[in-house]
């Protein structure tokens, strides 16, 4: 299956950066059944890592009960124009994806 990049939007409000991310991902719990009654295997994002100018500012650990195509927003205390933001994830199957932006 194809892994889609993380979509990120960042907005500076003074020195605080408000970062919003969307991660296209099925987030299967492993308890659902398909039309044939077979269990759909679990497939969900486990770890989301957020980098601000290459230093880690936030890590999210998720279980399968985060909604499909997860939305995640967080805030960085001291950011300025030109700073880079990178968000990446790893799921339970070892797949990974990321996205990055430069604040403006």
């Amino acid at each position: 299956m194809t892994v889609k990049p993380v979509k990120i939007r960042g907005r500076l409000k003074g020195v605080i950066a408000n970062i919003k991310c969307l991660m296209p991902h099925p987030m299967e719990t492993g308890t659902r059944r398909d039309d044939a009654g077979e269990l759909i295997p679990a497939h969900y994002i486990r770890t989301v890592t957020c980098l601000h100018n290459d230093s880690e500012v936030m890590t999210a650990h998720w279980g399968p009960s985060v909604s499909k195509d997860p939305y995640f927003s967080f805030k960085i205390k001291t950011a300025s124009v030109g700073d880079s933001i990178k968000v990446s994830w790893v799921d339970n199957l070892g797949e990974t994806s990321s996205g990055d932006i430069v604040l403006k």
Partner: protein
Amino acid sequence: MKTNFSRRWFVKGLAAVAVMASFPGAAFARATGAFKADKTNSVVNVLFGDLPIEASSQITFRLPDIAENGAVVPATVATEIEGVTQIAIVIDENPNPLSAVFDIGESSVADVSTRIKVGKSSVARAYVKSRGRVFMTTREVKVTIGGCGG
């Protein structure tokens, strides 16, 4: 937690100590299966050990009172408490109550939002860990369509 000094218990304990020593914060939660726990009590036990849980009015926990679609329930946890290192969201009635744990770095604000699945009407809890203390606030969320159906 039941105290059963069996060999298995001892081995698990050893493993937990070893894991604690090598992983900080939520990596530890992952490694010891806080996400696999099926009761809120065991989730809290794995995440925060013996630390007392203090009810706090300083946590803003935004969650709809009534969720029309349990598969997508927006949740925000924010707090003015200083020195927050961890935020956790727990839904009592979900098969595995722990939804998400956030490790808050020094340079990020204790303010996170995401969307979670809520299987049926439940008590929702937000935990905030700061300087060796754990604070909690609860909300009730009513679900009209289940979240586990996706």
